[in-house]
């Protein structure tokens, strides 16, 4: 039997929290890297992370000279008191030669449309567009050319969206997992006053307190006990949806266990559905993470594109990705709902 025609390889879109990570991603075979500025205009607004203008310029030059693209995440919501940082970030992205903006706020999109119509726009996952009708709303009004789907849709739903839209679809392939719809979660601001939509942070480190208590080590966020660890239990960062809580007399991970998304096994299916880009999460992670995860995914995409019928996840890929998985566990996330 002959192989079916090879599907087009999706773009591999990799995270860059620093110039070193950007270079690592490009060297390891990323088709595009995404980055953010050093302020609240992007959803990874962490100390020590992200780019100033000179670094963006250097990163763009590095990527472009090696055939890779640079996307700028401008995916928080402009502040009612002062939207200047968001409007200026658009102007800076245009001036610095980035290839596309990843946007969530209609106010930001309107500024792009009205002042920089040549800028390519990608709809951020933070815009929470979960249907082709929602994507069409942003395409008609702002001309978005790609949409990143929230991590809550099944494969079948991803396929449904792709069949009904002319916008390119990007999905998450690997990284930390949000169980809530991105852009629609205020849990962090409820506890700390700061959340992804406005501040670009979730469960911020400034609100975390570790305490040694009589019953173990306690991790608190904004004063709320998110988890308590026995002497032999591995400790995780107290992201509030990943804590252990009590419901109906049972203490457990009541919302989400600390796991990572890994869709390597689904790659041929994602390609068959017509996914145009695969995103690796983790601008907050190290350059070594970016280098290793990009390497694995480059090999996987190349193999799936060359010989889709013979594609198989290689054990060394799984082993490498497992080293970087949160909670040392991998799941296919919502794409394959074991809980459905």
């Amino acid at each position, binding site marked *: 039997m002959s192989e079916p025609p090879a599907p087009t390889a999706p773009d591999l879109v990799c995270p860059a929290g620093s110039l070193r990570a950007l270079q690592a991603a490009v060297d390891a075979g990323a088709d595009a890297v995404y980055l953010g500025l050093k302020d609240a205009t992007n959803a990874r607004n962490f100390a020590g992370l992200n780019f100033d203008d000179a670094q963006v310029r250097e990163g763009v030059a590095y990527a472009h000279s090696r055939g890779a693209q640079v996307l700028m995440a401008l995916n928080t*919501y402009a502040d009612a*008191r002062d939207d200047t940082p968001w409007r200026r970030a658009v102007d800076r992205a245009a001036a610095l030669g980035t290839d596309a903006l990843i946007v969530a706020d209609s106010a930001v999109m309107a500024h792009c449309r009205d002042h920089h119509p040549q800028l390519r726009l990608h709809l951020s996952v933070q815009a929470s567009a979960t*249907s082709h009708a929602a994507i069409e*709303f942003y395409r008609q009004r702002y001309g978005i050319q790609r949409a990143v789907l929230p991590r809550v849709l099944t494969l079948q739903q991803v396929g449904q969206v792709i069949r009904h839209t002319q916008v390119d679809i990007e999905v998450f392939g690997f990284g930390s997992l949000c169980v809530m719809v991105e852009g629609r979660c205020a849990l962090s*601001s*409820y506890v700390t006053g700061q959340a992804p939509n406005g501040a670009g942070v979730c469960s911020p480190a400034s609100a975390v307190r570790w305490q040694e208590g009589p019953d173990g080590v306690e991790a608190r966020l904004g004063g709320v006990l998110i988890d308590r660890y026995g002497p032999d239990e591995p400790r995780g960062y107290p992201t509030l949806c990943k804590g252990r809580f009590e419901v109906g007399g049972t203490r457990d991970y009541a919302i989400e266990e600390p796991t990572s998304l890994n869709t390597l096994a689904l790659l041929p299916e994602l390609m068959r559905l017509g996914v145009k880009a695969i995103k690796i999460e983790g601008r907050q992670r190290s350059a070594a993470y970016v280098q290793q995860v990009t390497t694995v995914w480059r090999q996987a995409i190349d193999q799936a594109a060359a010989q889709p019928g013979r594609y198989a996840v290689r054990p060394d890929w799984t082993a490498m990705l497992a080293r970087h998985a949160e909670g040392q566990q991998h799941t296919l996330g*919502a794409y394959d709902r074991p809980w459905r």
Partner: protein
Amino acid sequence: MKSPRLQLNVGPVLYHWPRQDLLGFYAAVADSPADRVTLGETVCARRRELRLDDWLALGRELAAAGKQVVLAAQTLVETEADLRLIERQGEQHDFAVEAGDASALQLLAGRVPLVLGPHLNLYSRAALAEHADLGATRWVAAVELPLDAVALINPVADPVRSPRGEAIETEVWAFGRLPLAFSARCFTARHHHLPKDDCGFRCLADPDGLLLSSTEAEPFLVLNGTQTQSARVHSLLADAAALRAAGVHSLRLSPCAQGFEAVLADFEAVFNQDQPALGRAEAWAALGVPAPLANGYAHRLAGMAWAGR
């Protein structure tokens, strides 16, 4: 000068109540001081104690009782069936529809009058202005938004206007557990070790949601199927002056299973009859209204905080 009436809007019932309980609740609302009622199942497409035709019939009854009725669209739209339901909400001509996401904006703009719902992520004046040409008469501020931001987004003196010049009204979440997050996953089913598609509708047993507490027994969140709410009840009963200063026209009171009539009566007394707020909220717990209270979001604090006087 007498201040204008602050409209009281009974928000959609966010929990899964049996049909008879829903009908009983709305019979009481018909006789209440509420000006507006927003109707529909916004959380889970599997909950069908009332179908669209039932909601429409209920809406006509409430309209006959003098209430302004709005249909609410689902918040998380995932399937073709979800989209078809929104389409059908656009095929009726009796009521405006409150958009829960951009799908509803896309499918309904120009077909029915719209209310911009609280989960559309309108965080600045420019964002609200971007939605002014969709046929919207009112916007409901995101629950996270402080009142100072609400005042900047749609100021009384210079409101955002539709292309026809009509000022868009502002509604603020003034009472009830806060819807904080949405997921495709059902946390109630997960708690009962049941698959979502065969959940047995266990959420029917939780008329105010399923309480989630910290390991040291602090009530923290409430699981309501695919929606996660605050355990604390957001209440702006004591914030009348700040609400009026922010240019708010309408207060959203989100239903709870018990004591809601008293809550409505108290908001009416404080906001529209110049009665003092003091002591009123303290009486709610004895009526079965969930507690404790919070108002942090309104004051640019963590949402679970209480900004006292």
